């Protein structure tokens, strides 16, 4: 936030949360917030240009243990994207695993001002926050992994949903986290024994099923006024035929009532979970089946996790999946176990348009975006860096906006695209209002951040604005891509941070975290069990576990009161 006034004049504004669809409109900002009018402002002339609220990324891996391991074990990735320091910026390096500075600058140049780190191992929360602090400009938050956790599984087994709620509340507070992340529930615990599991398999060590874990955490999450729903990476990621499991996962939480007017489940990188066929030979797109489900139901939202062709670094808490991928490629692989909580794996991967499997994957992400009718149920992501680096978003935007570009691209892909994917037969083209929804409006709403000034430009909203150097009538896919890669201006909290595609100021971002407020009696009862876990199994003591306030120097606290 900076003091002073700013007037963005004559831009064509797309502010979907406030129903503004490409109207010529002035935006007034005072002391970092959008206001009705200003008296003596600095003026930015946005005549005829596209103006949107700052972008909000709902799912990206930008900080923490596995991101840093990715950097360390991929020095060859560090050679790409090298940019020398300037008077304002520190040096940039990396493509799929950019350094913290490049992460902030590149997102800001694309007009993004908020990014959610989508998987924080609780035990590595300090490391995650240290990196978030090191990422310039972007406001941020992180979702702690709470599903393969011993405490969670024991409470799910015993059916103590109130105590489970007390536990997740304590963990979200202890990690300065934002909500509940679920990654291959049960599967990462099974990976500790060299195995994996599907939705209804029993995890023998705890005698629970992934389905029970997901349902339990959804119920526990909705006991508080949480801004976000559970955020789920469903079981069997990347396995042919997994679309049935994905649909079944949606059905699990259909009866759960949301604490707020939002979804009860957000499933992420859905491209990886929309696969048909029985093996890689008869692999096919089932994006239509997933899109049909989302179209017919209102309790679940998705982000697409669309492929960007080329080399990238895959990284996830889904350890067994990374091992399967490593067996396919034979490239380097690393793996990590996080005590009682979770695990992770990392391996590089090349998405090639010559490969029939990669071609179908490439089509699926875009099919999801084009077949889900209501853009308020869908977010644009690449599951950075798993399906491709975030710097590929402008490519995806231009694809969604141009049937011509999709057809031209399909010609360069494996011909299987015409037989086993629906993409070439889809005519829909996104307009700028829909692009604004899937990159800021929907994502802010699904995270509950629209109530905290993100993703819109109504009076009282944060002064986060992206001004793209294009006219709303622009139809040329190449020009659209160029405009969305480097803004004319990015404004963060009323301060110009990017001008003509160059970073000109690097203020520190805020970290948003949620404080679920739980009954003391419940917390005390839960604490007996938790302290026992620390005494017997953790490698750190209870008193050294929680993240201190000093790790979040620019805090933004959201309180989530107990509901029932």
């Amino acid at each position, binding site marked *: 936030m900076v003091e002073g006034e700013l007037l963005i004049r004559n831009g064509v504004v797309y502010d979907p949360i406030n129903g503004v669809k490409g109207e010529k409109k002035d935006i007034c900002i005072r002391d970092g917030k959008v206001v009705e009018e200003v008296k003596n402002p600095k003026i930015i002339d946005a005549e005829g240009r596209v103006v949107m609220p700052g972008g909000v990324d709902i799912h990206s891996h930008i900080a923490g243990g596995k991101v840093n391991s990715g950097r360390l074990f991929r020095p*060859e990735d560090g050679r790409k994207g090298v940019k020398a320091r300037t008077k304002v910026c520190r040096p940039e390096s990396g493509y799929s695993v950019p350094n913290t500075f490049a992460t902030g600058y590149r997102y800001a140049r694309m007009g993004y001002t908020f990014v959610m780190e989508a998987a924080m191992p609780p035990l590595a929360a300090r490391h995650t926050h240290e990196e978030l602090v090191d990422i310039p400009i972007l406001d941020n938050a992180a979702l702690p992994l709470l599903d393969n956790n011993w405490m969670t599984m024991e409470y799910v087994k015993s059916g103590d949903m109130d105590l489970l709620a007390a536990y997740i509340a304590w963990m979200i507070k202890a990690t300065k986290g934002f909500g509940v992340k679920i990654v291959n529930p049960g599967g990462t615990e099974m990976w500790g024994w060299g195995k994996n599991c599907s939705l209804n398999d029993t995890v023998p060590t705890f005698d629970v099923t992934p389905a029970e874990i997901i349902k339990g955490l959804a119920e526990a999450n909705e006991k508080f006024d949480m801004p976000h729903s559970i955020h789920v990476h469903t079981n069997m990621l990347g396995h042919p035929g997994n679309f049935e499991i994905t649909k079944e996962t949606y059905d699990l939480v259909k009866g759960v009532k949301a604490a707020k007017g939002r979804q009860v489940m957000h499933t992420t990188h859905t491209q990886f979970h929309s696969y048909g066929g029985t093996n890689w030979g008869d692999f096919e797109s089932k994006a239509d089946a997933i899109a049909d489900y989302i179209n017919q139901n209102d309790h679940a939202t998705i982000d697409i996790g669309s492929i960007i062709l080329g080399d990238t670094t895959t990284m996830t808490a889904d350890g067994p999946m990374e091992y399967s991928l490593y067996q396919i490629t034979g490239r380097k692989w690393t793996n990590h176990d996080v005590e009682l909580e979770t695990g992770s794996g990392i391996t590089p991967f090349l998405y090639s348009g010559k490969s029939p499997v990669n071609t179908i994957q490439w089509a699926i992400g875009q099919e999801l975006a084009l077949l889900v009718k209501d853009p308020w149920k869908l977010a644009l992501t690449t599951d950075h860096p798993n399906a491709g680096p975030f710097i590929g978003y402008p490519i995806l935007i231009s694809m969604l906006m141009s049937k011509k570009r999709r057809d031209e691209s399909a010609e360069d892909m494996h011909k299987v695209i015409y037989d086993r994917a629906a993409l070439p037969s889809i005519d829909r083209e996104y307009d700028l209002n829909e692009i604004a929804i899937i990159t800021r409006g929907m994502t802010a709403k699904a995270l509950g951040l629209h109530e905290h000034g993100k993703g819109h430009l109504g009076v009282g909203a944060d002064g986060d604005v992206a001004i793209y150097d294009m006219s709303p009538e622009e139809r040329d896919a190449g020009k659209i891509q160029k405009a969305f890669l480097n803004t004319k201006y990015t404004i963060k909290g009323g301060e110009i941070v990017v001008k003509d595609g160059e970073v000109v100021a690097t203020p520190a971002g805020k970290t948003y975290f949620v404080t679920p407020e739980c009954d003391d009696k419940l917390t005390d009862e839960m604490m007996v069990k938790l302290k026992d876990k620390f005494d017997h199994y953790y490698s750190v003591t209870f008193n050294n576990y929680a993240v201190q306030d000093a790790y979040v120097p620019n805090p933004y606290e959201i309180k989530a009161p107990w509901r029932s």
Partner: protein
Amino acid sequence: MQTIKLKIKEEVTSGVAKIPVEVDSLTPDTLAGKTEAEIKAVKVWWGNKEENTGDLFDVSVEGEAGSAEEVKIVLEGDLSRVKHIGDGMNAGEIEALGDVDMHCGAMMSGGKITVKGCADCWAGREMHGGELVIEGDAGDNLCAMYRGEMTGMTGGKVTVGGSAGECVAQNMAGGEIEIKGNAYILTGLNMKGGKITIEGDAVMPGADMTGGKITVKGNVRDMIPSFRLEGTESIEGEEYKKYTGDLAMTEKKAKGVLYVK
């Protein structure tokens, strides 16, 4: 034909810290057609500062050139802290009159570099074509890939008059290397293609190789046990044992060939 002489100034190399100079911007491709004044203005990195070539080198130019093929650059003086000589060059010639620092001839795809002395690590790294002659010794990772990359040298020819260090030609996929002296541990590590000839001795050559050919004319110390003896073959009138491997990479992938006396 144009000859560009670049003599490094004594004050550049005489400092206690010996700050390195990086000259990848000084190749026949970039200097062809430039006047002396223009060459002096080309930027080079000296430590973390960008300087004018004319501030670090005495520059003299003889003759004229219409293209990079007609340019010869001669580097003189104490070159032991001059890095990236001929890095990425496509044509023409560079002659370095003395020992040179790391990354000489890295990523070059054409032309010729002659080092009248020794070259430090990473000479010929990820080279695609052209010729690199090192009259003295070469350091570690000659013609290898840089850290983490999947492919090292893919083409061109490298000759070393003396010996070479560790991991020569790691992940090499093509081209030719000739070492007149010895090669230290793990020559051709993970090699996929190309040809290496070592006139002297080698230690553990060919580990994890899946393609290409290595010939050791001297002694092999610590022969990798996962190579299979296929028989003998005569090369230039001498008998060699022919091995295939590395079987540690599985039978199917073990397509490398190792000739040992």
